[in-house]
């Protein structure tokens, strides 16, 4: 079914309609962890996009070579190689960003968006649609991270674009009232959960106006490990309640 859609549709679906963070609820860890400022959010988003596009291309090229039984380990190797490359590039050219992202940069390997797209799309589709799908999802991820980062940075530290060395020596533009009275809680951990919750509520409201279903935690359907997972039969794991309502 996916092949019949035009490439444009493959790209745009990742931006809004199937936004990986706000609609599919994937990749929540980096969404919460690196969005204390817009610049680190963009850095994370672009790094993940690069990995996503490259790994989608390679996995799609190899889709007939990889035996289905060992596909998950094979995907992980491909993804981990690209993450290593991105890690080296960031370390070499953007050391500040590397310090900010810290352990979350290598953790792109276990970002469920990337493995999820490999499993759901790139493993079944041709190279060009897979690349476009990866790009769309990556840009969608970046947009969602930017929204989080914008809210958290503005309210939490009262600046805009801090960390970009060309603006004010890296301290960013100060926002008049907020920079004197920053609400520190927004850059701390609780603020991350809170802003994400509210953003999700807004996304749900917009989705309802458009007649789309609410975002639910796709714990089982989208999880790349779903096939080998037996929790589903034993307990109703992830999203029973959320689907019902």
């Amino acid at each position, binding site marked *: 079914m996916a092949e019949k859609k035009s490439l444009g549709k493959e790209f745009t679906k990742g931006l809004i309609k199937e936004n990986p963070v706000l609609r599919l*609820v994937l990749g*929540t*860890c980096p969404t*919460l*962890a690196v969005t204390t400022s817009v610049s680190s959010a963009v850095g994370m988003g672009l790094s993940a996009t690069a990995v996503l596009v490259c790994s989608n291309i390679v996995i799609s090229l190899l889709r007939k070579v990889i035996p289905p039984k060992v596909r998950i*380990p094979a995907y*992980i*190797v491909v993804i*981990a*190689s690209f*993450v*290593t490359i991105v*890690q*080296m590039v960031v370390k070499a050219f953007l050391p500040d960003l590397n310090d900010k992202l*810290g*352990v979350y940069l*290598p*953790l792109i*390997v*276990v*970002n*469920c968006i990337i*493995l999820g797209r490999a499993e759901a799309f790139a493993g079944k589709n041709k190279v060009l649609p897979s690349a476009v799908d990866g790009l769309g999802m990556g840009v969608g991820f970046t947009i969602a991270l930017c929204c989080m980062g914008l809210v958290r940075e503005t309210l939490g530290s009262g600046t805009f674009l801090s960390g970009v060395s060309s603006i004010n020596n890296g301290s960013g533009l100060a926002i008049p009232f907020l920079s004197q009275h920053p609400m520190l*809680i927004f850059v*701390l*951990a*609780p*603020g*991350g*959960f*809170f802003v994400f*919750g*509210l953003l*999700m*509520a*807004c996304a*749900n*409201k917009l989705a*309802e106006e458009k007649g789309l279903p*609410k*975002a*639910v*935690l796709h*714990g089982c359907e989208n*999880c*790349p*490990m779903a096939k*080998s*997972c*037996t*929790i589903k039969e*034993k*307990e109703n*794991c*992830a*999203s*029973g*309640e*959320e689907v019902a*309502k």
Partner: protein
Amino acid sequence: MSYSKELLSIFVTYILTQNFILSKFLGICPFLGVSKKLNTAVGMSAAVIFVMMISTAVTYPIFNLLTAMGLEYLETIVFILVIAALVQLVEIAMKKYIPSLYNALGIYLPLITTNCAVLGVVLLNIDTNGYSGDLANFGRAMVCSLGAGLGFMLAMVMFAGVRSRLEGADIPKFLKGLPITLIAASLTSLSFLGFAGLVENMFA
């Protein structure tokens, strides 16, 4: 600071102040996904503690080997593969030899392979506890994983309790489902902010 005191301080830090879920945002997927029932939450976290401990025990010597060969840049790819293979092996062995334990923990094991909390603790141990192969550092790394695992369990169990109270609550329409869960997580995380500074003062 004596070594045992240092270990204790690492242990408490990773349970309370640097809680993996609530302040480091590692392992959010199981936190939101499997915390609906208390027994599932406990089973999942017990499996996480177990996998964290064995992964650290195995990857720490491997990193020394990589350093010796000058291949540190391969750490990400090597660690994820080692963890994945290890979890599979443990699952098979457990199924064969300890079926009762397999019934309790086994079902969660495949899920944990691609869990960022496990890879996170392994990478963090390498970053913070240095690479030198001496036994003292290995001890620190193991205590750190145990603390991180127990902190994971604490957050999961607490949050399972919070969620069971949410079930019957009257929630505004657009906050229903995931948004209210995240806001509840935010409040749980806020309570852990109260521990800030605790470890420094306790072990000063």
